[in-house]
């Protein structure tokens, strides 16, 4: 499913896949047994993913797209309903709990909200140290204090502040604490679930720079999850766009940003606020109507059709497969994918694909 990677992605690829997902599904049962009001939510619906060493894949989606559920699955914190996830060649989906706990040190999660994800009564030094105590074989007991100081320094915090509590730090500094904790076990993969969404724009830039520096120094691979394409465009080598549990478009940075083929990707790109005054009088021709439908009751066929400006009967009847238009092109799940000319100019439909 990966198209031949071009540009920066190719340079960073070192061949080896550290994390891979095959046809991953996660279905939740919701509602109460008592009221009989049971329903299922197909939160993650057939996702394929390959992450190379030192590579960053950006996953973009709005609320309800299943991106956070996917993050939990990839980090080994939740179990797939069906499908396979392999971390460093080991299958996560078949592991016992004990094996899973051991495997999880190689993949760590960075949470969205640094205000609620840190224990308010623990000093930040203790927060960063905790994973080392849980996995005692990573650093011997006598070296842990020093390891914590190094981790704090690595993320740009003063090791002398290890005794302070989270509330004594700003949002950006707390996110640095979260990153230091995630790095404590020297993981191969960081799954960052909207790591900068709760921060001011100026602080977002600091955290993104920190993540890029750490990646260069430590050879980390990132799964970087965000709700818009603006943040991801700076950090990702490859991008997957999710909508209601499915990937609707996937490709290299250049393919997705310069030649979007799915209407939803194009709308997301159009929704990025431009920080220049030239956009002032340009009418926003591509503001999507409505909001993402409920995952409890997704539309039939293509989930996006209720908000799509080129939806036709076939879209309600058949779910489009995630396919490249021609061999070598990047994949999009649309019956009427945009052609590159249309993608750069005004919105228009391409010829239907059979």
């Amino acid at each position, binding site marked *: 499913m990966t198209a031949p990677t071009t540009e*920066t992605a190719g340079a960073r690829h070192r061949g080896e896949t550290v994390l891979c997902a095959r046809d991953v599904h996660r279905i939740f049962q919701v509602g109460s047994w008592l009221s009989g009001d049971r329903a299922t939510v197909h939160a993650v619906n057939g996702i394929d993913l390959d992450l190379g060493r030192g590579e960053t894949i950006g996953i973009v989606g*709005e*609320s309800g797209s299943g991106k956070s559920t996917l993050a939990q699955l990839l980090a080994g914190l939740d179990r797939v309903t069906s499908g396979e996830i392999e971390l460093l060649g080991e299958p996560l989906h078949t592991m016992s709990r004990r094996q899973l706990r051991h495997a999880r040190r190689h993949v760590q999660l960075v949470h969205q909200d640094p205000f609620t994800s840190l224990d308010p009564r623990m000093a930040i030094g203790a927060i960063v140290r905790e994973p080392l105590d849980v996995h005692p074989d990573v650093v011997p007991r006598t070296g842990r204090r020093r390891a914590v100081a190094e981790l704090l320094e690595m993320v740009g915090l003063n090791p002398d502040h290890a005794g302070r509590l989270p509330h004594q730090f*700003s*949002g*950006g*500094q707390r996110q640095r604490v979260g990153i230091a904790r995630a790095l404590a076990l020297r993981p191969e993969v960081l799954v960052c679930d909207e790591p900068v969404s709760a921060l*001011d*724009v*100026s*602080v*977002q*830039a*600091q955290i*993104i*720079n920190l993540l*890029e*520096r750490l990646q260069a120094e430590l050879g980390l691979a990132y799964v970087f999850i965000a*709700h*818009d*394409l*603006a*943040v991801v*465009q*700076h950090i990702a080598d490859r991008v997957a766009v999710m909508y209601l549990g499915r990937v609707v478009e996937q490709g290299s*940075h250049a393919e997705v*940003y310069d030649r979007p083929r799915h209407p939803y990707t194009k*709308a*997301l790109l*159009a*929704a*990025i*606020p*431009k*920080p*220049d*005054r030239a*956009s*002032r009088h*340009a009418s*926003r021709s591509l*503001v*999507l*109507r409505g*909001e*993402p439908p409920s995952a409890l009751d997704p539309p039939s066929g293509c989930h996006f059709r209720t908000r799509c400006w080129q939806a036709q009967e076939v879209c309600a009847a058949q779910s489009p497969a995630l396919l490249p238009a021609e061999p070598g092109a990047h994949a999009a799940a649309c019956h009427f994918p945009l052609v590159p000319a249309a993608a750069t100019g005004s919105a228009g439909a391409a010829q239907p694909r059979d």
Partner: protein
Amino acid sequence: MSASRAVGELTGSNTYAPPLVEVEDLCVEFRVSGRWAAAVDGVSLTLALGRTLAVLGESGSGKSATARAMVGVLPAGSSRVSRGQVRVHGRDVLTMSSDDRRATRGPQLAMIFQDALSALNPVLKVGYQIAEGAREHHGLSRREGRDRAVELLELVGIPDARRRVGNYPHQFSGGMRQRVMIATALASDPEVLIADEPTTALDVTVQAQILELLASLQADRNMSLMLITHDMGVVAGVADDILVLYAGRVAEQGPADDVYDHPAHPYTRALLASIPRAEQKGKPLPVVGGQPPDIANLPSGCAFRTRCPRAAAICATTRPPLAEVSPGHLSACHFAAEVAAS
């Protein structure tokens, strides 16, 4: 003071309308560990009919405190307005009796908040909450209020308004809830709408819808809109005037074209540069190093100097005055002219 007059004259000459709201030398203090610290220090601004003012700044820059002081919803006890005037149609609302204040400010200034879920009352139907302003300030009956609520829900683009008017806030999605709050704010037919980070908690596609709704309401009703945000990208397309706050003080203010094209304060420049763009891929983003200062313990002289790439000796000794770099465009930097020219 000369600052607010300069901006007022400029807006006045553009629209031939007297300013609706003039804020002059506003100071708001918060109680920080037993002492009063200035969260807003000497902010002057003007809101004119049919214009949009964007107020920009990081968390703790005093942008929300300014708005809350204007609308009169600062937390009592832990905060106070220590200096300045908020004039609505030329009358200072801060020195009025509370009845006069309600009668003046209530119908003319409305505010919407970032988090609609906590700003709306969870146990009252949205129709009742929307019509509250109209009942209070225009003396509508309950039945008339309900009809008004339906009209307003239709205006803000909620489908099936006649049925939805009887729903509770939790029955709406995030974007719809933000629309309900906008309807609530419009109920008393305000001349001024203050929106405090109205799109921060929303999905991007919904954010674009809400910004478009605000812009079209502003144009149709010829309202004055004050849009508070930390993201320069969000307001680039809608603002007529810009006010940049740092540590409670005005860093830069003026017409949006001037501020975007020739930012005259290093902080504004850094805010603009820190927005991720595709062409910067592979390079570190330019950032403002460090953290915003603690308002109880500001650096001497210029509050921004500890993070400023241009800081010189004078910045530590003298607080830069807010001075004009071009007509109506003001910057509080000792090197404003050089920054604007670079």
